[in-house]
């Protein structure tokens, strides 16, 4: 399904704390098919970037606001993948 589209968009993936450690990077530029959803982008990241240590369900934010996995990404979006929060 990800490969059906001919158009592609560029998304900045941000990784934090333990997830940055897992993936070995805190920022990755992803090239993804047009119409891709946030959850699909995470699946892509798991496969393409040795990030299978990422748990099946992660907290996501798009452009600095919490977002559901169903959120359709747009070109230039910033997709943040957030480990369980531990502030305070």
């Amino acid at each position, binding site marked *: 399904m990800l490969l059906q589209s001919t158009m592609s968009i560029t998304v900045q993936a941000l990784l934090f704390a333990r997830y940055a450690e897992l993936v070995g990077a805190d920022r990755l530029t992803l090239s993804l098919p047009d119409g891709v959803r946030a959850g699909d982008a995470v699946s892509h990241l798991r496969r393409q970037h040795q990030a299978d240590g990422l748990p099946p369900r992660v907290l996501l934010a798009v452009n600095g606001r919490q977002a559901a996995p169903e959120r359709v990404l747009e070109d230039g979006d910033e997709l943040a993948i957030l480990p369980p*929060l*531990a502030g305070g």
Partner: protein
Amino acid sequence: MYLTHQPINLAVLIAQVSRADHGAIATFTGAVRDSHAGRKVSALSYSSYESMAEHECAGIVRETEAKWPVRVALMHRLGDLAIGDVAVAVSVASAHRDDAFVACRWVIDQVKARVPIWKRETYADGTVAWVDPTAPGGIVMSRPDAEASRG
């Protein structure tokens, strides 16, 4: 600005909410403890998704001031902290202590639930872990070397 890399000055925070008609001020400070998950903590570091964290903090303050007749000040520290350092401080002023206490408690609970901040603990035995309230035991050991060597 709700995030800072500098020590939190509680007097400044309290002065920020004080007003002649708000006599009751409830303040919460969370300081770095010397032990966690049964381990002796020697060093601690907070990191954040700063732009989102600032936005969430502003939202919490705005929502609190809409829910109760209060004024709210909030500050969370980032970077390397020592044992005893204040990591987070909330100060809530109101005309009456009920509102001040309830709103102060709500703010700190919301901070923990919504603000993207992470805590990395170094223990006296040299091991390192990420604090994870969802994990059994509350921490997940850090394995930067193991992960790096996989690639």
